């Protein structure tokens, strides 16, 4: 296991105390994600996948245990410090896209850069570049309601990568998409990995997990399986997109 871990979750528990009974969403989870991995997180509903993603994304802090990004312990940082970590190191892709309505694609993509000391011109240049990377350069001026679901998710991916993060976290990025557009999105995520970004994604579909290089399964707040595999290349073409089982061997 040559490379040091990019994300290191060390015996982390998360307990929600909102109701009468404390909900133990994660129980003693340890997980290391290495640079260049495309990790798929699977598990049934309510198993704790999103909770894990929120911790990995520094949107939340663990109740117990430590979490290190790039060797730095971020489990006890303040809200403001976590915001800076998110801004610099993490990109998010959501199931429901989460684009700002009535705001053009390029401005949506610019959003993370707004919280960095950059000039407006430089922000715009990088945002257009990111849009070009997801193949939507010519849609820069379109508003989300003028884009298809797949296009919206591509804009969201552009927003996730515009800040050149180390890791992109995607919680069910294909959950709202049909199988064809899902493959398109997975192709983009694989491209990100090829470009050196680590990707963690949550999915319910084995077809989607087949595009990952590693699959873990979460059950009742614990990681129960952890499998490395050769990822199926996502070819954004309907006929190929059907392929792939959990342990499928990739096409060379």
């Amino acid at each position, binding site marked *: 296991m040559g490379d040091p871990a990019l994300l290191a979750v060390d015996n982390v528990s998360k307990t929600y105390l909102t109701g009468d009974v404390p909900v133990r969403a994660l129980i003693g989870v340890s997980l290391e994600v290495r640079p260049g991995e495309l990790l798929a997180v699977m598990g049934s509903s309510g198993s704790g996948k999103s909770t894990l993603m929120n911790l990995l*994304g520094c949107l939340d802090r663990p109740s117990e245990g430590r979490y290190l990004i790039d060797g730095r312990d971020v489990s006890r940082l303040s809200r403001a410090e976590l915001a*800076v970590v998110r801004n610099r190191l993490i990109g998010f892709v*959501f199931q429901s896209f989460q684009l700002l309505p009535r705001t053009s694609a390029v401005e949506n993509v610019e959003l993370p850069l*707004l919280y960095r000391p950059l000039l*407006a011109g430089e922000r715009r240049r990088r945002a257009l570049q990111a849009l070009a990377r997801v193949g939507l350069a010519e849609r820069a001026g379109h508003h989300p309601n003028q884009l298809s679901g797949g296009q919206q998710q591509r804009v969201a991916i552009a927003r996730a990568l515009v800040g050149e993060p180390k890791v992109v976290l995607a919680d069910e990025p294909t959950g709202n998409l049909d199988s064809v557009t899902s493959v398109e999105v997975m192709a983009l995520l694989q491209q990100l990995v090829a470009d050196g970004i680590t990707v963690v994604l949550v999915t319910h579909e084995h077809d989607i997990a087949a595009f990952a290089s590693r699959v873990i399964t979460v059950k009742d707040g614990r990681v129960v399986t952890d499998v490395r595999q050769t990822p199926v290349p996502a070819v954004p073409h309907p006929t190929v997109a059907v392929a792939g089982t959990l342990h499928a061997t990739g096409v060379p």
Partner: protein
Amino acid sequence: MSPLSVLRVALRALVRNKMRAGLTTLGVVIGVGAVVAMVAIGEGAKAQVQKAFESMGTDLIVVLPGSQNFGGMQGGFGSGQTLTWDDLHAIQTELSAVRAAAPQLRTNTPVLGDGNNWGTQVMGTTADFFVVRNWALQFGRPLQASDVDGATKVAVLGQSVAEQLWGEPARAVGDVLRIKGVPYEVIGVLTPKGQSPMGMDYDDVVLVPAKTFMTKVQGGIKQNIPGSILVAAKNGRESARTAQQVQALLRDRHKLVDGDPDDFSIRNLAEMANAQQQGTQTLTMLLMAIAAVSLLVGGIGIMNIMLVSVTERTREIGVRMAVGARPVDVLLQFLVESLTLSVIGGAIGVGVGVGGAWLLTAKFGWPTVVRPDVIAIAVGFSALIGVGFGLYPARRAAALDPIQALRYE
């Protein structure tokens, strides 16, 4: 986040809801407009009073015969003619604080000149009157000691009288004015002084020598002055001291002992002017208070809309936080938004207020004074309201949990 981007984001959010932003600022517009207009009216009234007293002379003291405090019982103004010509002489010569003093014998009577008739106030006085009132002539010459001593039949006209009778004031000089049938030579016309604080026309007056007044107009020669004495203090700010000196002198001369009430009364115009000003000050304060309340209501309107805006944009806040907005960035974003709202409202309000004041002056002749410092204060205050009332919604936004915010429907 750079200040410029913060402002741009705020402006975009407002522009997106133009109607709502407009209606929200209305409260501040009305509040600030009211403040500016009200203060303009108050200041205008104050300035008018001040001007009126200034043209009269704030260094003036009027000494009236008889005790005015018991005026009702004693038969009112001038009942006892307790002031003598010797009293006047003593005031003129014995008091250090007195610049000059002159008698004022007055009656209202019609006068005739150039074939026209005009009811005016005829006043018997001395050459000192022009010194006391600091009143120059625009044509001819003032009354002189020789006129007073010789009881000559000469008259100096106020601007209004000369205008009413001769049309052209300059034409009056050298012509004949008849008072109660007696012809007087018009020797001069005074410069105009305008209105008194009570709205009386200072220039509606005819001045004749005091002795002539007593023999030809009213009264007959007596030891007592059938009128009042007008005293000018040497120093405009020492009218109170002057009044004390005059009072002490007259009590002494009238042989009043401790406990006796004054048999004369003293009106200090500076004090009256102060009282008047205090009155307008109170009015201004009252109007300000009303305006401040409407500003407050405007502020609450802003808070309300900002709370709505924060709720509506919960998801947006979640997204911004997820991509790296710190709580302080979110706080500033909403604070700047409410600040922009209130300052724009304040700026429009200033326009409305100044316009309103101008309209009141143009249409109804109300005196108004728009003070730049009031404008600055009004805008500053509306900014304060924007921050003050925007703080709570902004803090609520900043305190949102990004995960919850992203899930918000």
